[in-house]
């Protein structure tokens, strides 16, 4: 017990040095997104990591939105020093939120000490649909929007899939669309990991979309590509994406990006209803908010390597590295 107390003091000291505002819980928790609509009764997963150098035993109690039924109500946890594990809860009854925000709280009991972890979950799911890529976003009302706010500017990300296409509809609130603005996004098979060695091979498909001339899409990486090139400031013009349809339209303060990619050229994703995949997205707005990172609302931890996102000529990167490119998403059936 004294050892655990010492470990917690160390964490507290480190937290005060780094400026971290959270309670010094010895277990770091991240609840994963729902990858299908909660009303369908999915499994809710969370990753628990022991931050100390001593074994930790804890009891967790999860609180989901009112009226939900979740089993089991409590879970016991036993972690070796530095160990991570994934816990699962069955969602037996739930209602879908039109705003796509699901606040939840975890009560964590470690010995006599009580901690609280709060998180706003989203349903990170891509419904089946075939939109026309024509700059008219009215067809995107049946997608499941994921919103983030960066310095008072909103970005809304919507996605669809069908047997031939992966489609994105992204609304970027910004003062102006400039030549430096772009979307950058990555897709990878579910539960992929970003390698930490420059000698490793890519596990992702990675794209950049600029708003110039109505919109152009470039593909920087495919699975199996060497990651040595990730740091290079490559000229986008050398990497046009094949079979991509793009429309970028400016309406008032919103830049609408609408695109469709050839899903059959991304066979590693094995797209089918119910299958998970990894996705994340950056918005480059260097003259406005700076870099916007979808991972920032997903409680991701700082990327463990510099290999999470490809550099490209003209990109302006902040001092703080973006988060990892692998947020859990899922392909699903149409929502109605």
């Amino acid at each position, binding site marked *: 017990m004294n050892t655990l107390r010492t470990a917690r003091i160390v964490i507290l000291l480190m937290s005060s040095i780094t400026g971290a505002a959270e309670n010094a819980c010895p277990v770091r928790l991240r609840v994963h997104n729902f990858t299908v609509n909660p009303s*369908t009764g*999915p499994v809710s997963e969370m990753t628990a990591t022991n931050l100390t150098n001593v074994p930790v035993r804890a009891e967790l109690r999860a609180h989901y939105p009112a009226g939900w039924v979740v089993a089991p109500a409590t879970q016991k946890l036993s972690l070796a020093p530095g160990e991570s594990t994934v816990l699962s809860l069955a969602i037996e009854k739930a209602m879908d939120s039109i705003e796509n925000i699901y606040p939840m709280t975890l009560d964590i009991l470690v010995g006599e000490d009580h901690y609280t972890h709060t998180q706003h979950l989203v349903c990170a799911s891509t*419904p089946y649909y075939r939109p026309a890529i024509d700059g008219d976003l009215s067809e995107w009302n049946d997608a499941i929007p994921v919103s983030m706010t960066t310095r008072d500017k909103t970005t809304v990300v919507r996605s669809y899939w069908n047997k031939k296409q992966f489609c994105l509809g992204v609304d970027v609130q910004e003062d102006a669309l400039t030549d430096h603005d772009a979307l950058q996004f990555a897709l990878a098979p579910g539960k992929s990991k970003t390698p930490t060695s420059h000698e490793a091979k890519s596990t992702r498909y990675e794209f950049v979309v600029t708003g110039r001339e109505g919109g152009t899409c470039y593909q920087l990486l495919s699975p199996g590509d060497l990651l040595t090139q990730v740091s290079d400031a490559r000229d986008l013009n050398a990497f046009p994406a094949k079979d991509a349809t793009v429309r970028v339209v400016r309406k008032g303060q919103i830049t609408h990006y609408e695109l469709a990619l050839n899903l059959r050229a991304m066979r590693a994703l094995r797209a089918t209803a119910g299958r998970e995949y990894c996705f994340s997205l950056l918005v480059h707005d260097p003259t406005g908010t700076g870099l916007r990172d979808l991972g920032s609302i997903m409680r991701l931890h700082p990327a463990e390597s510099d290999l999470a996102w490809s550099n490209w000529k003209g990109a302006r990167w902040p001092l703080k590295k973006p988060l990892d490119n692998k947020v859990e998403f899922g392909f699903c059936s149409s929502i109605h």
Partner: protein
Amino acid sequence: MTHKLVTITLVSLLANTLMAAGPVFETSMAENENAFNAGQTAARKLRDKLKGVTPKALIVTECFEDRAQKADVLKGVASVFPKKIIHGGSAYGMYTQAGVLDIDAVSILAIGGELGVDIAFVDHMGAAGLSLETQKDQLVNALRQGGKTLAQQLAESRKGMLLILIGDAHSPKNQFLLDGVQTVVGKTLPITGGSVCKNAGQNFVFHQGELTQDSAIAILLTGSLEVSLVGRQAKSNDQVISTAREGAATAMKSIKAKPAAFLAFDCGGRMGKLDRLEDELEAIQASVGKEIPLYGCYCAGEFGPSDTGNTDTSTSTGCGWHIMASVLGH
């Protein structure tokens, strides 16, 4: 010459009778980018396997992209069999003893022999486009009435051994369709089946060779048939495989008669959890063997005994994430 003709006819009738002794179930499957050819190929394979037995009903399952292709599948099947016996629905994928398919494919289950087959159909249920979150009362009423209207057409429901229900009402609203059916047939009749694929533009129920939406079909089997029906839920790769194996094994053990067919109305969500698509079929085959006619399809909701711990497993319910495994014996 007349004597020879009479003899041939009598021999043929006798052969047909002998071959049709007891219920007859057969399956076939085909894949082809050309939807008509896929339907026709599957139908021809099935006709060959039936060896002269005339089916009383076909359950067709397909996973083509759009309406035109789905219509072509049915035309392909109808080029071999009469339209009036062609029923079924769209799915996310399907499996038979021959394997698993989930792109540009069709499978067919033929039901025939010494078995009563009664078909009921309802369309224009009034449930299409209604949301469970914002229009619950209207949706529930529409589906319950639809189910009731469907079941009221089944004159022989009291003699039924198994009801196969296929509806355009995905989980969790499939329960309301079943509620309506059970207000007429009661809760003791074994009911299995599934909800058709709910992808936009792909939610079709087939009735007499035609595509329909906002509809449901019920196929009631009567006669000397023994049915063992087991439901198992799973939401991870390992559990999908283990529950398929155990559920199929339990259904096989629970039947005293000689097994004549294995049916599985399975969940599209379970299919999405599989790391390797063939694993669930192989788990089923480990329990039922590779000889028995085997028909499985991945649906958007299932009908059968729920496995969620707090329900009566002898009563069929509408749910999700399940494999509803039936062994039919004679």
